[in-house]
């Protein structure tokens, strides 16, 4: 079993499976509706520390701020 890490720690090109989102319900809602739900697979396209990240979920490209990316817990995929 792979370690669970915040999405923000993933580098460009790495993939992960969302485990849970810790944070306010407003944020969770928004992310859910964009397709970032538990068990969804994300691929990090761009990650510029300390700026926002660009991730790919179900074929759509979602930009997310560094702050929320730290609250999305993912299981790193090989």
């Amino acid at each position, binding site marked *: 079993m792979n370690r669970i890490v915040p999405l923000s720690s993933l580098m460009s090109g790495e993939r992960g499976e969302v485990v849970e989102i810790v*944070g306010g*319900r*407003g*944020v*969770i*809602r*928004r*992310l*859910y*509706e*964009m*397709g970032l*739900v*538990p*068990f*969804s697979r994300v691929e990090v*396209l*761009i990650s*510029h520390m*300390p*700026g*926002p990240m*660009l991730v790919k*979920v*179900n*074929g*759509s*490209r*979602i*930009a*997310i*701020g560094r*702050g*929320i990316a730290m609250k999305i817990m993912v299981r790193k995929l090989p």
Partner: protein
Amino acid sequence: MKVVAIVGNPNVGKTELFNRLTGLNQHVGNWPGVTVEKKEGKYSYGGEEINVIDLPGIYGFTTRSIDEKIAKNFIVKNRPDVVVDVIDSTNLERNLYLALLLIESGANVVIALNMWDIAKERGMEIDVRRFEGLLGVPVVPTVATTGEGIEELKKAIFRALKGKKKGKKIKIDYGHEVEEKIKHIEKILERCRKDGYPSPRWVALRILEEDEDILSEFRKGNYWKDIEKLLDERIAGKIVEKRYELCSKLAAEIIKEKKEVKTLTDILDEIFLHKVLGIPIFMAILYAMFQFTFSFSAPFSDGISLFFSWLGNIAKSNISNEVLASFVADGICAGLGSVLVFVPPIFCLFFALSILEDSGYLARVAFVMEKILSKFGLHGKSFIPILVGFGCNVPGIMAARTIENESDRIITIMINPLISCSARLPVYALIAGAVFHGYTAGAAIYSMYVLGITLAVLMALLLRKLLFKGEVSPFILELPRYTKPKLSTSIIHMWNRGKWFLIKAGTFIFIVVIIIWFLSVFPWEATNGGKIIENSYIAMFGRIVEPVFKPLGWSWQAGTALFFGFLAKESIVGAIGALLGAEGEGVYNALANSNWFTPLTGFAYMAFVLIYFPCVATLSVMLREMKLKYTLLTVAYTVLLAFAVAFMIEFIGHLFGLS
């Protein structure tokens, strides 16, 4: 008449599909959620007159931006006869989520599987029959950009209107735990019938998902205590998860083939969102945009200016009545001419912005600028309203609607008047042209834009510290795929935004022009038909307000002209012209030869014009978009800031020995 609503995620080509259906051209853009107003159109099919409503792009029903509220309320409360859900074929899984929500709400859904061509290009194969069978609603592949599949869609809508069914609609099984809770709430609902909602099951689900709109209706009721007990954040999450689980399952069954390819969007994003190059590229694009705006439009502006002075001369030599001749030539022709010369640069700027927006680049700006903006308490999305504000503050303020968080949105609106709109440019150009020479004139104008942005950012920081305490709301934004902008779409887009200025020119500004003319030539005898302006009404008014502007070293005429800027900032040019008794190109020379301004006081005057009082059109849109108190606060701070900055400029100038 039957009502058909068009709904879907942002950037799926909803508005284009709407245009195809109705033939009515509307605003099309790439910024997620760009369709902020209700748009209607009509078409007839099979003898049935059909009214089509284009709803704002939404992802679901629970988030709380204005756009999403509009769309949800329309579907649930107005109950359109048919709801066309536009789906991006290349992004089926995510788009299915909204489709499920719509079917669940009991709407009469027809699915338009849009961007069918792009899916095919990518080697995707979608089984449409299977899709229909699984969801139990009609599905029609479409390509809104070319019009492919529109006839079939009209046919499907017609059949849906006539009540023809496509098998059994899908029902989601949320699993034992959630279903128990749903039953429980349904029982409570039996006791307090809530009319006007789709079904008890739907209301139960909305309650469990903690939809504020629904909850607030129950909060005052007798059963709130029973309902409150059942609320659980974990359950709310579970419902969404279940739906997504189903989406993945459905997508896996419907999509027969899918290849992973590196798309053009991937490559372009590597360039435009580059860590180091991202911001310089944006700056270069911005520079090119302004260059285009000003150099491309210049000959057109010159033409308009020449035309109106030619028209004025004809009027003067052909109308025998002196007052009437003066009214037509000095009032209407000179006044309108001095304002309409700005139509070309304004339209050019909006055209450039439309190209950026329609290509998908504008959303990238939010990504690139997010880090810097968040330092000043602004949201990544705030940059779009700022950029649009350079054209006109009215659409700039309206563009703030896509920001969900109320504080972020209000801050973005409140600082927008500081963004130097194109209507202020003529005032700068006139003053800088008269008091500076060569390069310094250009630098003085450019510095106004920099000053505007700097003040806006500082104001945002101040508002965040004093009024809207707390963090900037999280940045989440879908970046649309890049598309080649279509000339016709960008022109429509430009027109929809720029027409505001023409409407202004035809109404407010026209009235101001007539008022200025009247005040500057009457009493007719005393002014000798407008020749001795010192004896006019406007001069009397100017003398009254003179003391206010005296400390800044501005003549009474300069101070008076500012009052005309309340209605529209560009009116200041016309007012200065009238007060100098000159028109067209002559105003420059007249102002240069007058002793109204020194370079220092002229520069301070330009800054004052930039900052003071939002124009009437901006005020009216602010009142519509936010509470009265924030609008009043904006008026107050802009006036105070204008005086403060003007004084500061003159003070610093004096320190350096300028006069």
